[in-house]
C-alpha cells in the first residue's frame, strides 16, 4: 500500500524546494509544512491510478472533470477499506460493526459540515447527488412554502437539473418560473437578476459556476439581493465545490447542493445543505425506514434532522469515501487547486485562441475551470471524436443546458474542463489535436 506521506527525489528543474538538480517534493505536498504553497502536479497525478492508463494507445488526457472527476487512490482505498473492515448497515445495529459503520457515516457528515462551514452537522443531508438534492427542495420546500402564483427565479444558464424540478412543481402547484437573462459573454448581469426579484419571488435558485461556460456568478451579491426581496436562495454548487472554498455561513444561502462525484468522490452520493429552521419546517421528501421516530397505522412521527430526509439505507460506503475525497482536496487546499486551475484555464484560452477557425464560447470576466468552444465548419461531435482518437477526453453536446444553448444560438459546443490533476502539457495535447482536426476537416 502507498504511504499517505512520503518524499521522493525527482531529477530535473521543477520549481520549488531543493537545490542543484534534484528537487524534493512531498506527497501530498501540503502534508509538509516546509513546502506549503508548492503545487506538485506530477505527484498529485500519481495519486490517480486511471491517469496512467492509455486509450487508443495514447496517454489519457482527461479533460472532462466537469462531467465527473477521476478518483484518487485515497478515495478508492477508503471505500475498499470500509467494505473490507467496517461495513454493516448503520443506525439499527447494536453490534460493534454497525456502530462502527454509523460512526464512519457520521464522520463523513462532519467532513461535509467542515467543508461548507455549516453551523450544524444536521444541516447536512446526504442525497444521491445534486439532482436529487434540488428535487428534494422543490418537492419539500415547495410543499411547505410555495403556493399558486409564487415565483421561483432561476437563471438562463442553469443545468436541466435546476430547471425541470421547478417545472414539475409549476405543473403541480401553479408556481411561476422565471429566468434571469444571460448576456453575450455568458454572464448573468446582476441588475437583470435584481429586476426580476419581485414581491412574489419565494426562492431564487442558481448555479455558482456554469457547467457549460465556466462563468462564475456573483452569488454573494445575488444572495443579498434575493434576501432583501424576501426570497430564499438555493445555490447549485455542483461545478464550484471542487474549485473554490465555500462558506455557507458567510454566504448566508438557505440551501446549497453538490454531487460527490465531481469532488473526486464516488457516484451515488451528494449533499443538500439547508438552514436548520427551514429543514425543520419542511415535510419529509420520501417515507421509509430510518426517517421515523415511531410508526403506527394511525400516526407516524418523523425522526429529527438529518434522518428525516434520509429515508432508507443510504449509500454508506460512498459517504465514507466522499469524506476521504473532502480530506484529499482540503489537504491540498482549495485555494491552491483553484489557483492551479486558473493557470490552466488562462493557458488553454491563450493556446486555443491561436487556432483560427476556433471560437471560445463564454467570455465572462470571471470564469472557472471550463472552456467551451466551437470550430467554424466542424461539428462538435466530430471534433470530440478525433480528440478521443488522440487520447483526449472532452465532451461535446448541449451539456444538459438547452435553454443556454438556445440563447447562444448553438446546438452544441465542445467542452474541455480542468481538474486539480491537469497539466499544461495536457493543454498542449488538446491544442495539437485540435490543429489536426483543422487539417483533417478544413484543409
Amino acid at each position, binding site marked *: 500500500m502507498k504511504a499517505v506521506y512520503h518524499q521522493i527525489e525527482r531529477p530535473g528543474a521543477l520549481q520549488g524546494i531543493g537545490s542543484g538538480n534534484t528537487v524534493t517534493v512531498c506527497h501530498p505536498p501540503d502534508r509538509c509544512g516546509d513546502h506549503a504553497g508548492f503545487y506538485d502536479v506530477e505527484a498529485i497525478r500519481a495519486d490517480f491510478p486511471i491517469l496512467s492508463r492509455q486509450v*487508443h494507445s495514447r496517454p489519457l488526457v482527461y479533460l472532462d472533470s466537469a462531467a465527473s472527476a477521476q478518483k484518487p487512490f485515497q478515495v478508492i482505498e477508503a471505500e475498499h477499506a470500509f467494505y473490507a473492515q467496517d461495513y454493516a448497515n448503520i443506525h439499527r445495529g447494536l453490534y460493534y460493526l454497525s456502530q462502527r459503520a454509523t460512526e464512519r457515516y457520521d464522520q463523513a457528515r462532519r467532513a461535509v459540515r467542515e467543508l461548507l462551514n455549516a453551523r450544524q452537522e444536521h444541516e447536512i443531508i446526504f442525497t444521491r447527488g445534486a439532482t436529487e438534492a434540488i428535487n428534494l427542495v422543490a418537492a419539500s420546500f415547495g410543499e411547505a412554502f410555495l403556493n399558486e402564483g409564487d415565483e421561483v427565479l432561476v437563471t438562463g444558464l442553469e443545468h436541466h437539473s435546476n430547471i425541470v424540478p421547478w417545472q414539475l412543481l409549476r405543473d403541480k402547484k401553479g408556481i411561476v418560473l422565471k429566468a434571469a437573462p444571460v448576456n453575450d459573454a455568458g454572464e448573468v448581469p446582476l441588475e437583470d437578476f435584481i429586476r426580476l426579484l419581485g414581491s412574489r419571488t419565494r426562492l431564487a435558485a442558481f448555479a455558482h459556476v456554469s457547467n457549460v461556460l465556466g462563468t462564475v456568478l456573483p452569488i454573494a451579491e445575488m444572495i443579498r439581493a434575493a434576501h432583501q426581496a424576501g426570497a430564499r436562495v438555493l445555490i447549485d454548487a455542483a461545478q464550484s465545490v471542487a474549485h473554490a472554498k465555500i462558506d455557507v455561513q458567510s454566504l448566508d444561502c438557505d440551501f446549497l447542493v453538490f454531487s460527490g462525484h465531481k469532488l473526486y468522490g464516488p457516484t451515488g452520493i451528494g449533499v443538500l445543505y439547508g438552514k436548520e429552521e427551514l429543514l425543520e419546517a419542511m415535510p419529509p421528501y420520501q417515507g421509509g425506514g430510518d426517517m421515523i421516530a415511531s410508526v403506527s397505522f394511525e400516526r407516524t412521527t418523523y425522526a429529527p434532522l438529518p434522518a428525516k430526509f434520509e429515508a432508507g439505507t443510504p449509500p454508506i460506503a460512498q459517504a465514507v469515501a466522499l469524506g476521504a475525497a473532502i480530506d484529499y482536496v482540503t489537504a491540498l487546499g482549495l485555494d491552491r487547486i483553484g489557483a492551479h486551475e486558473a493557470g490552466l484555464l488562462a493557458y488553454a484560452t491563450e493556446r486555443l485562441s491561436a487556432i483560427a477557425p476556433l471560437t471560445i464560447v463564454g467570455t465572462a470576466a470571471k470564469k472557472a475551470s471550463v472552456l467551451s468552444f466551437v470550430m467554424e465548419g466542424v*461539428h462538435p461531435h466530430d471534433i470530440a471524436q478525433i480528440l*478521443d482518437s488522440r487520447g483526449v477526453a472532452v465532451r461535446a453536446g448541449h451539456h444538459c443546458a438547452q435553454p443556454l444553448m438556445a440563447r447562444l444560438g448553438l*446546438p452544441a459546443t465542445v467542452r474541455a474542463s480542468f481538474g486539480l490533476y491537469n497539466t499544461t502539457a495536457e493543454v498542449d495535447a488538446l491544442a495539437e489535436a485540435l490543429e489536426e482536426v483543422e487539417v*483533417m476537416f478544413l484543409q
Partner: protein
Amino acid sequence: MSDSVELYPKAVLDHGRHPRNRRAIAGCSHFAKSENPSCGDDVSVSLRIDQGDVIREAAFDGRSCVVATASASLMTELLVGKTPAQAKMLFQRFHALAAGGAEEAIDSMEAEAERLTVLSGVRAYPVRVRCATLAWKTMLAALENERSQQ
C-alpha cells in the same frame, strides 16, 4: 492508426465536406424532418416518387456532423431508381452494418450498396450509430408521409 480514424475514411470525409443532393426538392412528393435529441442535429429528407412507385429524386438538408451528413449524402445517391420497398430493404442492411451483428446482411449487399461499408466504423461507437442512421430513419418517415399534390 487508432479506431477512430476508421470512422472518417476518405469517402466519408469527402461526402461529409462535399455532400451530394443537399437541397430541397421543389414539389417533392414525400417529406420528413427529424432531430437527434442527443446533439440537436436535424435532417430533412425529401423524395420525388413517380406514378410507377419509383424514387426519381432524393435530397436532404439540415445541420449535422460529418458522419450524419456523409450517410445522408450516400443514401440519396443510392435511393434513386429504387421502389419504397427496396429502399426499406436497403435501410435494413445499412442498419445491420452500422449497428453491428448481422454480418450476412453485409455479405449479401449488392455491389452498389457496398459503398455504404465506408460507414461501418460507427459500429465501434454506439453513440455515433444514431448519427449514421438519422437520415435513414427520416427517409423511412418520409416514405410514410406523402404530400398532398397541389
